[in-house]
């Protein structure tokens, strides 16, 4: 392999990035040293196994990655704004669309989703932590260092450029020599292992860690959506891991799974990667559905309409999503029989999704609706997802797909469901649960500015792309000539689309401003129940103490906290004498971080085919596993006195003691 260009050279934007990376790193190091924060960083964050802190770290990283992916998007839109543009070199353009897709799905959507899992699920089911807190920390650090491994590729070694799913044979050694493609493989392989662990963790947490009185049929819908999504993770992430391992064997050891020669079958790559890739989009959208179910019920002051059908439709989506993957490659020509089966399955999946939308609308019907920030994002989601879903059904019609395939029509469709569904959903969730985790409400005024710039930007950006698709513009097109630009009318639509992308970027800046402003000046929530909520997370103080529930809550049915509040108002609520017991909690550990660092070293080594470094990293991984196996001091008890002290402090701090006991 050609390693002569260890540092990427030649492009002034890359040099700019080099300089800014060095300056930011220096600033962070100086800050931490000057304020003597290294110990704090290590004790409070790097070694933490607390699900709330891990959730916060997931949230921060995903917002950071949203910025990186967003910059990629804006660069692409600038390149395409006018015909015959040479703003980016063609090679650089390929790299940017590759990293944009990879980062947005795997390093923005997935961690944002895990942030919500971690911040909400244990609180919602009355648990004190996830089932495997240590494993949870391992998951986070594997994700984080996997993401960093992919991200350094644009200054060291060169970015991958074979598209976000790196179709073989383009991603094989013959056509993609050099370390870029290896960065892609190892970055997402390492973080994918972390995702699989999180899936296991939350399935077990939801099945085993609920407060003893909570039956599955009383569980809040967000937790149900996490269960459905986690089961889908268990089903497909092993395929992902195995498929990446096969490509690794091809590239590193000279295998022929997906090569053009030696009996390889490149289409098998497409088949396998979409077996993971399609369920993956349902994995990320299901929790967004869960978020909306909580928000609509809370802000309509009604219990959710059709709880059972909501649960059933989520489970149906997570199962049927396994049987739709071929619709990504109808044009492969597997024959009418294959295509029709998968086309029908794809259309079927629209039914449970439609059921959910109707249930949300019926929940709002005759409800006492409050238009808050989370509710705004929900109301933006409905029409957006509806149009996205309808264009999806158009694409699902196999014969018609031969026309739309890989055109800008497709680009517009999947951005509409992924932004309109996933991003709007997660942002709604962030606005909804931010007061719970941080004890701060996000500023309303800045939030509305962000909301409207996002909304307008979205439609200005993506509606023209449907038209561009019909006009014949294909995805991943680097530039177009002036005949296409002016005579065929591509240029004006592309220009409009670029304006929309900038508007969304401004929306994001508003959100960053909003978060920073609110941390400093935002309204403090001292009640623990910022929105007059219905589920258990609102029954404890904000931010919750480290053990969440001083006493495990008693659940008498759905929307447990809502009915308890009603009983409290009527005065019929029997407050039992508070009797604390010592709480069993896990110890912090530095091993998850060190293990992930070893994985990073291994990944970096194999990326450059430096076997000594790769093997050294793997040995490091085994040493950390070994060390953990012989660690016996892994947990501790919080004493009754300490619980009393904490609870009294929370009460005196102004927050009314409203724990469900």
């Amino acid at each position, binding site marked *: 392999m050609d390693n002569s260009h260890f540092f990427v050279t030649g492009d002034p934007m890359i040099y700019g990035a080099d300089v800014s990376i060095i300056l930011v790193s220096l600033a962070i190091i100086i800050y931490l040293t000057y304020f003597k924060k290294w110990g704090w960083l290590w004790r409070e964050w790097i070694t933490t196994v607390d699900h709330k802190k891990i959730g916060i770290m997931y949230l921060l990283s995903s917002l950071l990655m949203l910025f990186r992916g967003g910059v990629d998007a804006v660069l692409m839109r600038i390149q395409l704004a006018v015909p015959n543009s040479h703003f980016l070199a063609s090679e650089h353009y390929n790299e940017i669309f590759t990293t944009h897709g990879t980062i947005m799905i795997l390093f923005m959507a997935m961690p944002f989703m895990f942030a919500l899992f971690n911040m909400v699920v244990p609180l919602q089911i009355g648990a004190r932590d996830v089932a495997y807190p240590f494993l949870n920390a391992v998951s986070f650090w594997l994700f984080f260092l996997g993401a960093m491994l992919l991200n350094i590729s644009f200054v060291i070694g060169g970015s991958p450029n074979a598209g976000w799913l790196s179709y073989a044979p383009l991603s094989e050694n013959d056509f993609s020599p050099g370390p870029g493609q290896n960065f892609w493989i190892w970055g997402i392989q390492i973080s994918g292992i972390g995702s699989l662990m999180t899936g296991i963790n939350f399935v077990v947490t939801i*099945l085993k860690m609920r407060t003893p009185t909570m039956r599955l049929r009383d569980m809040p819908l967000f937790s149900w959506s996490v269960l459905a999504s986690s089961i889908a993770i268990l089903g497909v992430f092993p*395929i992902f891991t195995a498929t990446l391992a096969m490509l690794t064997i091809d590239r590193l050891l000279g295998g022929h799974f997906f090569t053009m020669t030696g009996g390889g*079958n490149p*289409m098998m790559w497409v*088949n396998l990667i979409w*077996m993971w890739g399609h369920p993956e989009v349902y994995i990320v959208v299901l929790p967004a559905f869960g978020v909306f179910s909580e928000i609509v019920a809370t802000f309509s002051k009604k219990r959710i309409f059709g709880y059972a059908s909501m649960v059933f439709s989520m489970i149906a989506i997570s199962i049927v999503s*396994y049987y739709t993957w071929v619709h990504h490659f109808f044009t*492969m020509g*597997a024959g009418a029989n*294959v295509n029709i089966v998968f086309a029908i399955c794809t259309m079927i999946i629209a039914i449970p999704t439609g059921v959910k939308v109707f249930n949300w609308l019926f929940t709002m019907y005759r409800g006492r609706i409050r238009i808050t920030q989370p509710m705004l994002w929900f109301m933006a989601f409905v029409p957006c997802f509806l149009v996205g879903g309808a264009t999806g059904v158009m694409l699902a019609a196999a014969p018609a797909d031969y026309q739309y395939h890989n055109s800008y029509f497709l680009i517009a469709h999947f951005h509409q469901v992924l932004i309109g569904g996933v991003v709007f959903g997660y942002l709604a969730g962030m606005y909804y649960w931010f007061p719970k985790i941080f004890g701060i409400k996000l500023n309303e005024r800045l939030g509305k500015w962000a909301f409207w710039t996002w909304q307008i930007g979205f439609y200005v950006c993506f509606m023209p792309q449907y038209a561009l698709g019909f006009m014949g513009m294909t995805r991943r097109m680097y530039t177009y000539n002036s005949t296409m630009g002016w005579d065929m009318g591509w240029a004006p639509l592309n220009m409009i689309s670029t304006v929309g992308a900038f508007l969304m970027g401004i929306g994001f800046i508003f959100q960053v401003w909003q978060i920073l402003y609110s941390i400093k000046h935002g309204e403090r929530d001292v009640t623990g129940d910022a929105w007059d909520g219905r589920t258990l997370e609102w029954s404890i103080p904000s931010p919750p103490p480290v053990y969440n529930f001083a006493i495990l809550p008693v659940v008498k049915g759905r929307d447990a906290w809502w009915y308890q509040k009603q009983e409290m108002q009527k005065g019929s609520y029997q407050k039992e004498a508070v009797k604390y017991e010592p709480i069993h909690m896990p110890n912090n550990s530095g091993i998850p971080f060190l293990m992930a660092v070893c994985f990073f070293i291994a990944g970096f080594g194999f990326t450059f085919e430096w076997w000594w470094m790769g093997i050294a990293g793997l040995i490091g991984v085994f040493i950390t596993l070994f060390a953990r196996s012989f660690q016996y001091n892994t947990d501790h008890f919080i004493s009754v006195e300490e619980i009393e002290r904490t609870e009294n402090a929370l009460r005196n701090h102004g927050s009314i003691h409203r724990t469900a006991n």
Partner: protein
Amino acid sequence: MSNQEHTASIKAYVTGFILSIVLTVIPLVLVLNHMMGKAALTVSILLAAVLQFVVQLFFFMHIRDGEGPRYNVMALILGIIFVVTIVAGAIWIMSFNSQVQ
């Protein structure tokens, strides 16, 4: 934690290990010595694989453990559905390869 309910013991692990090795060696010997025709060979290899899967479930994966809801069995059924989908689906979809060549 109490381990009383676990069916595992050193003996069980060793038995499972030996059975797994035997079931791995059989197809290897069959292939290396060209002892069968193609169809018979494929069936034998698949049979050994399925048997080894069962051995691992019983001796290593504690499939018989636990009480209450049968999560083990449910997970197993789900896993089998996934595997059948992947293998049968991929074979079916990729059969176009022989048609176009």
